[in-house]
């Protein structure tokens, strides 16, 4: 029935179009306008140029209204130091392009209306004006130079090396989940290898490396407010992308090529709950790079704690090897071989660090 209705609608649409076409042609012949050069009939010119002007006014009003109406939704509360820089740069740029947008669109539609065809008029022969062209080449060049400079300064700060004191968290993407690892008391992440991955040891951690012994794998990210946090990012299968919208943070997770991003959170989860008026608010980590069927469902939670709360949470965490004692059995038998391959696991860990 629905299929029949759809087919009938399409047929009716074509019939209406056909009738419009015929009526339009007959009317233009009757009026004599079919004899005029195309685009010079008074009606079509007046109607279209007026509609263009109305589009400018109506569309402009609709744009302003919708922009204002969406303001709250589009402006996620920012919760990182660099996020305030990028937000500020974003809205500064928006103002600059907004001015250009308004001027050019107004001129486009206004000229279209004002200079609509008139039979007794001739257009102004004006093929060029070197001075004018130089001016409107230089102005965008200068504006772009300023935006480049502002952007470069911000980019340089964001991508600078993380402070030594940064809290280190390893984030690993896999189809279709995020996993995180903390370095434990020694502050060093143990060596990991793709070849060591199995159902239990999903990171492929080499537990023959001493610095891996205290690594722990929680099911949420916890970070302290006001302290630098370094995310060491990797993927074990395809490209994923760590995206924390409230922190204005995004970095791809690339298999075989560790990446990193550091940031300073400025608002605890509790503060954000107050600010947003949402008692269930949580910072969410999403995947921004298409990674397969479950791409849209790669959600992970991040909690920003007060430093004391963070320390308390840290103290509660148990190393992965304690929670999964069976995992060491494999390394008890394989360790000599692995150690022989690596020769100096400490150096390997250092190598891993410098790559980042």
């Amino acid at each position, binding site marked *: 029935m629905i299929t029949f209705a759809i087919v009938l609608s399409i047929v009716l649409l074509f019939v209406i179009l056909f009738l419009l076409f015929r009526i339009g042609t007959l009317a233009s012949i009757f009026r004599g306008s079919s004899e005029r050069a195309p685009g010079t009939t008074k009606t079509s010119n007046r109607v279209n140029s007026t509609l263009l002007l109305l589009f400018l006014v109506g569309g402009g009003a609709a*744009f302003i209204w919708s922009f204002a109406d969406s303001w709250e939704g589009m402006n996620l509360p920012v919760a990182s130091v660099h996020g305030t820089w990028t937000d500020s740069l974003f809205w500064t740029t928006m103002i600059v392009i907004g001015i250009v947008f308004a001027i050019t669109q107004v001129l486009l539609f206004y000229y279209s209306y004002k200079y609509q065809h008139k039979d007794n008029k001739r257009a102004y022969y004006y093929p060029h004006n070197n001075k004018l062209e130089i001016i409107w080449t230089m102005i965008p060049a200068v504006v772009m130079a300023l935006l480049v400079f502002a*952007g470069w300064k911000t980019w340089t700060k964001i991508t600078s090396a993380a402070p030594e004191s940064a809290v280190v968290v390893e984030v690993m993407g896999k189809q279709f989940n995020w996993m995180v690892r903390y370095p434990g008391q020694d502050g060093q992440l143990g060596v990991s290898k793709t070849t060591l991955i199995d159902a239990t040891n999903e990171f492929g951690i080499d537990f023959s490396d001493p610095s891996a012994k205290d690594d722990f794998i929680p099911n949420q990210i916890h970070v302290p407010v006001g302290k630098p946090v370094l995310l060491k990012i990797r993927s074990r299968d395809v490209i994923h992308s760590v*995206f924390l919208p409230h922190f204005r943070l995004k970095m791809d997770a*690339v298999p075989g090529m560790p*990446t990193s991003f550091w940031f300073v959170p400025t608002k605890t989860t509790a503060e954000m709950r107050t600010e947003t008026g949402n008692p269930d608010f949580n910072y969410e980590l999403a995947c921004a790079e298409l990674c397969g069927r479950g791409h849209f469902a790669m959600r992970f939670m991040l909690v920003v704690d007060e430093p004391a709360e963070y320390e308390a949470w840290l103290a509660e965490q148990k190393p992965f090897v304690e929670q999964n004692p069976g995992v060491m059995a494999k390394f008890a038998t394989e360790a000599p071989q692995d150690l022989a391959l690596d020769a100096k696991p400490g150096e390997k860990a250092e190598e891993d660090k410098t790559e980042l």
Partner: protein
Amino acid sequence: MSSTDITINQDVHHPHEEHDHHHDQNFIEKYIFSQDHKVIAKQYLITGIAWAFIGGFLSILFRLQLGWPEATFTFLEPILGGWVENGKLNPEFYLALVTMHGTIMVFFVLTAGLSGTFSNFLIPLQIGARDMASGFMNMLSYWIFFISSVIMFLSLFLETGPAAGGWTVYPPLSALPQAIEGSKGGMTMWLISMALFIVSQLLGGVNYITTVINLRTRGMSMTKLPLTIWAFFITAVLGLLAFPVLFSAALLLIFDRSFGTSFFLSDIFIAGEALAHSGGSAILFQHLFWFLGHPEVYIVIMPAFGIVSEVIATNARKPIFGYRAMIGSLLGIAVLSFVVWAHHMFVTGMNPFLGSVFMFLTLIIAVPSAVKVFNWLATLWRGNIRFTTAMMFAVGFVSLFISGGLTGIILGNSALDIQLHDTYFVIAHFHLVMGAAAFFGMFAGVYHWFPKMFGRMMDDKLGFVHFWLTFVAVYLVFMPMHYIGIAGFPRRYYAWTGFEVFNGFTDMNMFISISAILGFSAQFIFLFNFVYSIFRGRKTTLNPWHSNTLEWTTPVNPGHGNWPGEIPAVYRWPYDYSKPGAVEDYIPQNVPFSQTQSSNLPQERDFE
């Protein structure tokens, strides 16, 4: 002789004896395997239109999912079979839909359909040539394109579905059949299709370049070329330099997929197994892909620049303002388009210094783009504008190009790209600037040159309805996408309701989907007008728009060889509109100069 008695002289000059040696042709030679550039152009156009409807329909399917993520669409089951279960689109098929939509629109519609149609149709006609330099290669380029598009189409019927890794087909997703269903046969067919497509583009491009350089009629110096030809010429150069790089990337990807190499693969554990690959770089593929991918943006939009410049000048009855600056800006954009590719990769983990360099180069490309916009505005200023349907689309193009181009300034700024990368802000930006704007350029071209193609006129009233519905719908679709993009709403999400941060945009997404359906439906008006007018449209006159360029000096229905007699010589630039002292408000390029009339002086005098 008074200053007002200069009339349009359509007589042709006879520099050399040239004859049409084309022999009698049977149906297959004339309409199927034709070597006539005009027929090949129509083949490109009709194939492009067919692909546009298929690509558009796919977008409507996934917009249904995005607009109503919780709804069921049982009526899709008879169309999509197993890809819809209990009225719900399969998430993997959703990804195939977005992949195919992007691939089809970018390559088959906006590259082949736009550039293929108008470069083929206009280059010989506007430069005064009998045909392309090699009619056979030209024919071959269309048929290879056709075969490549058929292969892509057939991938829709594979059990595992077509490619589903996005139109950018980043490895490892595209390289590993176990990563996603769409990386199986569908991806193989995608790669074969693209390899053939690139061959077709190269054959076409070499032909365009050779023709423009060698086959211009007497007097047609490079500075007398219409801007359309400049645009097509530079587009062909871009394609010739950029497409082979994608070809190499595709070839290496085939090796990784099928022969165990590791160009793009390294240290991967997938489907319960650690793979033997090591030492490759997934990011290398992105460098190779975007080395084509970014010039591709301009391969798509440049022909539209040319078409719109021509349509605006003709209908504003004014010389295009700053002709040489327009050529300079085309060249500037072309050169810069090759050195900005990594702005697609700011958050891939590449060296931040490289990010700074690419940010600088990316924002600089805004300067020649701005020059073009200002020059179009200056062309409209004090014009005597005829609102033909083509002109409406040209004005719409400028509006969309401004809107989409400006948001590019934000995305080109690496610090801002962190938040916006891979969000709907990007979708909105590039759909406005190289999707909708390029489509508007294409529509302007079709409406403007339809009389030359088919000897009949398209109906203006239907054209206006088509324009207004499309124009309004485009803004209604893409403006809200900016808003949700600023909030970080990610692209290529089958559903977002699992995220609190994205969950507030249900109404906005529904609004976008309804607008998209409106916009797509409006294209049936165009289809009707196009098909009906081919057979029943009002018959055209020799030069219906009172245009200056050479194509309007051919007969209404030119045969193979274009001009029945000799090819006209050229004396003027193509933009002598409303020249003071002239009787008519246009003086075609083939009208010789008078020794006495100021209005007939060569345009070079204007630049002294």
